[in-house]
């Protein structure tokens, strides 16, 4: 009887192992069919840019978050390849970008068009959805005067999690690209935390952060810089550093007058989780580094605070 029992267990285990191997094999076959080769991907991005700068070579590996990416490079760019999908997730310009021979200065709209075309060639279905474009022009930012973010949204206005960042020089050269893939299925989920509730949670967290600042400042008052006592150089007006504990005015942030704040909310997928991204900006404080901002991310299903921080 015992022998039969062992035989049965062994057979079941063997069957399970066989089934899992078969499943993994099938998955690999399916992936192998869809997966482009790294060379195809590199050709695709270079075609999208309509320019090729020398031969592509392998550089090494780079850890980004939890994944170790392959890095390839040519005379101008470093390319980051996802080892599981072989897709390019990023591209940077480690050195000064080249100025094209027929260089013409472009404006913000032309920079957006350039980035749009680039995305269209790399992600054929990206614009099948609505896309919010945040574009910024900063002429002082040398060699990357236009910074853009493309946020894909579904028909309900929920971020699918697919985001692309592109930077373009004033001469129209793409110098930076990073793409994050989202999850349209997760974006279809109905949030259990309403927008109003999320904003309430964000304000609650902002108040907690204010309490933490007050506590931190009180602790800081007790710390005397012993080095300053020795250095003893005067301030610009001739005041010497004090060697005593100095009490400062208690920190205050006006979180009550909400109508004075700039509150932005975004319901989006990130890392396969539906989240509320809340930013409370323009909060008056009694410190010269204000007005300050608070940034809070909340799980839209559970209401759990995922990340919080302040300027």
């Amino acid at each position, binding site marked *: 009887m015992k022998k039969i029992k062992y035989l049965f267990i062994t057979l079941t285990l063997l069957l399970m192992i066989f089934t899992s191997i078969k499943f993994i094999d099938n998955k690999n076959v399916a992936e192998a069919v869809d997966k482009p080769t790294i060379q195809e991907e590199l050709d695709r991005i270079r075609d999208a840019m309509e320019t090729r700068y020398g031969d592509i070579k392998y550089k090494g590996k780079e850890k980004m978050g939890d994944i170790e990416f392959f890095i390839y490079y040519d005379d101008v760019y470093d390319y980051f390849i996802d080892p599981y999908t072989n897709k390019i997730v990023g591209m*940077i310009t*480690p050195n000064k970008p080249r100025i094209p021979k027929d260089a013409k200065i472009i404006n913000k709209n032309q920079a957006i068009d350039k980035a749009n075309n680039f995305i269209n060639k790399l992600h054929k279905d990206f614009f099948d959805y609505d896309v919010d474009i945040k574009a910024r022009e900063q002429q002082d930012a040398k060699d990357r005067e236009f910074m853009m973010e493309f946020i894909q949204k579904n028909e309900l206005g929920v971020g699918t*999690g697919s985001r692309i960042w592109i930077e373009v020089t004033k001469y129209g050269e793409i110098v930076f690209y990073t793409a994050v893939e989202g999850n349209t299925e997760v974006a279809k989920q109905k949030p259990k935390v309403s927008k109003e509730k999320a904003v309430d949670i964000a304000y609650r967290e902002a108040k907690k952060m204010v309490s933490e600042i007050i506590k931190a400042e009180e602790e800081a008052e007790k710390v005397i810089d012993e080095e*300053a006592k020795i250095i003893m150089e005067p301030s*610009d*007006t001739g005041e010497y*550093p004090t060697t005593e504990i100095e009490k400062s005015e208690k920190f205050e942030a006006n979180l009550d007058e909400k109508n004075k704040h700039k509150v932005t909310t975004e319901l989006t997928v990130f890392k396969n989780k539906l989240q509320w991204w809340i930013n409370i900006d323009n909060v008056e404080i009694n410190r010269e*580094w204000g007005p300050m901002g608070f940034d809070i991310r909340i799980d839209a299903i559970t209401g759990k605070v995922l990340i919080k921080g*302040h300027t």
Partner: protein
Amino acid sequence: MNKSKLFKVLIVSVVLIAGATKLAYAAGPNAHVYYYADPGYGETWAVNKYLLDMGYSSVRFYESHPVTARYYLGSDAVFYMWAHAAPGRQATKKSGGLRLSAKESADNNAWSIQAKYKNTTSKLRKVKLAYWHGCRTAQTSSYYGDLDYRCSLYGADCTVTFWDKQYPPYVTYFDKQAFYRLKRGDTVKNALETAKGITYYSYGTCGGAETYRIAGDSNEKLVPAGYGDY
């Protein structure tokens, strides 16, 4: 060898190794890493560790008076400050009421770079990298001046400042990634660009760190450890 002799040899070896390590670190070029109770320590522990790994004699200071940071800036190869800030100055000590500023002013609470290092163009020549991390440090104030202009004027090789408001933990993660790449031997520009990509990828935002500005030599490297160009 009996047990007590073996024990003594072990103790002496440990002391010697510890001493040698300490000496090796002490021999490196100076670096200082500053942080404050608010906005907190950020990733200063990691930044300091990477600098030590690179061979710098790096020290992490908590709640320093601006006079201290200004004093050591002149002998630093690498200067890193994570503090609240506003155009032309970083707010330190006394709940941000004391300032390490760029230009001389009539502010009782300002210890400016200009006041200490003026009249030459080389008093900050030892500085390879001055990294001013705080909100809007890249912006110019008509009253407090411009941090990277002032550092460059007195001979610093490279400075990094930021245009916009800075939101941790994204921006401190950015710093950690950047200094990790600097440790690996990347140029400042390469390190910051890679850090930007990684931060976007990890958080979906850089929290304002993407608005960094490099003044001076963006191809500056921190390894091998050394002082700036004389």
